[in-house]
C-alpha cells in the first residue's frame, strides 16, 4: 500500500525472519502476493520473472507441503528448481551446514530456500552464500512465509488486519509459525492472544508482539475475529508436556460450542497438517468459516512474491 509522496523500495537480500521486516515491507509483499493470487484464480500465468534463474530447495527436514509450495511458486515464475536431498546424503557423511552452504554457493544459484531443524541454522547459512536465502522454517524459531501467508489469508477474509482480535491456540512453545505470524499480525495492528497449556506457552511472548498469553481457551476465544489452531506434536503428549489427548482436546480443542464464543463471523485457520479430533473438530475444519485450504493457496502466492523480490539479489 503506497504512501503518497513516499518512495518505497524493498531492500532486503534475504528473508530470514519477520523481525527483519517493516510494516511497509510486509504490506508490499502482501500486495504483490495478492496480484499473484488473483492471476492464478483468473487462470493467467504470471510473467516469467525468474526465467534463466536457478532456485535450490534445501530441506534438511521432510516437508512435502512447504517444499511443493516453493517449487510450484518458483516454476510458475519460470525458474529452474533443484531440490537437494541433503537429509539423506551429505549430513550422514558428516558434512556441516556451512560446508553444504559453500558447496551450493559454488554452483551459483539465484536463491536458496532452506529448512533446517536448528534455530538460527538458516541465518548461519545465509552468511556464507552470495545469493538470496529464504527461510522455510528453522527449528522452533521462524517460518516467515507462513507468517505472511497467514496474514494475507486474514486480510483477504476480513479486508483488514488493523484492530482485529486474533487468538492463536496450541503448542506455542515449539511453534515457529506462532512466532512469525504473531510478529506479522502485531506489526500490522492486530491484537494477538496466545493460548495454550502452561507447559507449551513460554514466557516473554510480549516481545513477539502478543497482547496477552493465557491458559483459558474459553476466555481467549471470546469475541475473536480469527481463531488459529496450531498443530500439536503428538509425541509430546502423554506425560511429558500433557496428560493425554483427551484432556488436551477438552481444554484446548476447537469445537462448535467453543467457536460460538468467538465473533459471529470468526474465521478459522490452521497451518496444517491437522490432528483432527485433537486440535480441532472435523466439522469445524471443513466448515464454512474455515479458510484452511485458502491458506495453502495463499502460500504459493506469497512464495511467488518473495521469490520475485529476492531472486538474483547478490552480495
Amino acid at each position, binding site marked *: 500500500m503506497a504512501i503518497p509522496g513516499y518512495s518505497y523500495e524493498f531492500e532486503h537480500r534475504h528473508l530470514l525472519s519477520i523481525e527483519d521486516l517493516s510494516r511497509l515491507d510486509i504490506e508490499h509483499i502482501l500486495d504483490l502476493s495478492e496480484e499473484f493470487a488473483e492471476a492464478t484464480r483468473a487462470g493467467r500465468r504470471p510473467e516469467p520473472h525468474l526465467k534463466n534463474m536457478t532456485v535450490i530447495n534445501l530441506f534438511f527436514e521432510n516437508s512435502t507441503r512447504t517444499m511443493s509450495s516453493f517449487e510450484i511458486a518458483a516454476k510458475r515464475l519460470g525458474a529452474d528448481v533443484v531440490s537437494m536431498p541433503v537429509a539423506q546424503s551429505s549430513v550422514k557423511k558428516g558434512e556441516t551446514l556451512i560446508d553444504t552452504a559453500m558447496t551450493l554457493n559454488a554452483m551459483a544459484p539465484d536463491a536458496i530456500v532452506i529448512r533446517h531443524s536448528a534455530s538460527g541454522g538458516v541465518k*548461519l547459512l545465509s552468511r556464507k552464500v552470495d545469493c538470496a536465502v529464504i527461510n522455510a522454517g528453522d527449528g522452533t524459531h521462524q517460518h516467515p512465509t507462513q507468517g505472511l501467508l497467514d496474514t494475507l489469508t486474514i486480510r483477504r477474509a476480513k479486508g483488514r488486519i488493523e484492530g482485529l482480535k486474533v487468538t492463536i491456540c496450541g503448542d506455542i512453545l515449539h511453534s515457529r509459525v506462532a*512466532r512469525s505470524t504473531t510478529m506479522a499480525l502485531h506489526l500490522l495492528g492486530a491484537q494477538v492472544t496466545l493460548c495454550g497449556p502452561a507447559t507449551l506457552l*513460554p514466557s*516473554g511472548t510480549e516481545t513477539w508482539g502478543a497482547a496477552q498469553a493465557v491458559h483459558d481457551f474459553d476466555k481467549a476465544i471470546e469475541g475473536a475475529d480469527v481463531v488459529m489452531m496450531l498443530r500439536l506434536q503428538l509425541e509430546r503428549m502423554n506425560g511429558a508436556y500433557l496428560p493425554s489427548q483427551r484432556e488436551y482436546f477438552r481444554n484446548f480443542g476447537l469445537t462448535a460450542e467453543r467457536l460460538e464464543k468467538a465473533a459471529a463471523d470468526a474465521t478459522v485457520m490452521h497451518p496444517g497438517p491437522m490432528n483432527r479430533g485433537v486440535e480441532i473438530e472435523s466439522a469445524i475444519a471443513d466448515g464454512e468459516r474455515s479458510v484452511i485450504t485458502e491458506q495453502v493457496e495463499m502460500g504459493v502466492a506469497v512464495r511467488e512474491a518473495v521469490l520475485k523480490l529476492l531472486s538474483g539479489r547478490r552480495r
Partner: protein
Amino acid sequence: MKTLITNAHLACPASGWDEAGSLLFEDGVITAVGAVNETADETIDAGGLCLAPGLIDLRVKTGEPGAEQKETLATASRAAVAGGVTSMVVMPDTDPVIDDVALVQFITNRGKETAKARIYPAGALTKGLKGNAMAEIAMMSGSGAVFFTNGDLPVENPSMLRRTMGYAASCNAIVSSRPNDHALGTSGVMNAGAQAARMGLPGLPREAEWIGLGRDLLLAEATGCTLLVDQVSTARSIDMIRAARDRGVKVYVSVAAHHLFFNELDVGDYLTYCKVNPPFRVEEDRQALIQALVDGEIDAVVSAHDPQPPEEKRLPFGEASFGAAGLETVLSALLALVQDERIDLLDALKPVTSSPADIIGVPQGRLVVGAPADLILFDADKPWLCERENLRSRSLNSPFDGRRMVGRVERTIIAGETVFEF
C-alpha cells in the same frame, strides 16, 4: 642472579601495596619489595607500569591428554602467560580422566616439560567421572592434585556425593562442584527465558543452578567438607552462599570472568562463541555478580578456559559445543570494571592472585619476600582490540572477539624468568 624492577606501580592485594616502588628477586624468589636500595645484576625499568603477582586461574580445560587438537598444556600456557596467568589448575575431564596418581603425575610432569606456566592438576572426584565410585582422593592429593571435581558432570547421586564429600573432608581435601541439577539443567543451550523463547532455543533454567547449589551446600554442611562452588552465574546463588557462610559452612566460590562482562542478549544472532555453560544470564544477574565481587564475596575469578576447535563452533547454535577460550581476557575483563570505577584495582586483583593461592595452598600470588617471583607488568589503561585470529590459544573462539578491551600485559615472569614479552 639478582634482578631489580624499578619505577613500577606495585599492586598486591595480599600485602596492600598500591603505590610506586621497586621489587628485587634473586634465583626466582622475591627478596625485597618497596623502596629497594640494593644493586642488581639486571635492572628492568617498568616505566610506571603496574607490577602485580602473576594470575592464578582455578579453572582451565585443555585437551591433553586425548583431545590435543583442541588444546595442549603447552598451547594453553602460551595463551596463559600472554594473559598474565602464571599458574593454572587444569580440569580432570580429559581422555583418560585424571582419576589416579599416575595421571596426576603425568599432568604435573608434562606441565613442567612443555608448559610456560605452572600447571596444577585437579583430580577427578569419582572414577572416570561416572559418579558411581570414589576416586583415590587421598593418594592423588598426596601427588599434587589441588582439589577434586567432577568437572562439567556434577555427581548426580546425592548419596554418592555425600560419601565423597565426607571422605574428602577426612583427608582435608577440597571438593569443587559446578552447581547444576542434572534433570533440569542439561537439555538447554542458553539461559532459559524470554530471549531463548524468542530465538526458539531450549533454555537452561536458573533453578537448575539453585537446586544443585542448595544440595551441594547442604551436603558440605553435613559432612564438614570444604566446598569450592565452581562458576556461579546468578544473583540468588550469591545469596545462598552468603547464608551458608553465615551458618559456618566452609565454602569458596568462583565466577567466570566472562559472566562479569556478558548477559544473555550478547548471544545476539546465534553467536556460538557466546555459548557457554553456565550460560550468560540476565543483566540483573551480571550486576549482582559484579556487586558480589566488589563486596569481596567472590573468592576466585576464573577464565573457565574451554577451547573448542572451529568444527565444534561453526555450527547452528543448538548443535555447537559449549565453551570459550578465556585465558587471555581474564585480566582485561577485570580491568574494565576498574576502568568503570566499579571496583578498586587491588580488589579486582585479589580473586586472581592471593585468594586462589590461599585456596589451593601455594606460595605465589603475592609480592612478599620469600614468595616465588611470579610477576606481571601491565598497562592498566592500554586499549586493545580482541581479535580471534590473534589469540594464542589453539582454539580461536572467544566471546570477546571483536570487542575493545582495556589493559595489556607487557611482561610475564615466572620463577624469575621472563616467559612473555609483548
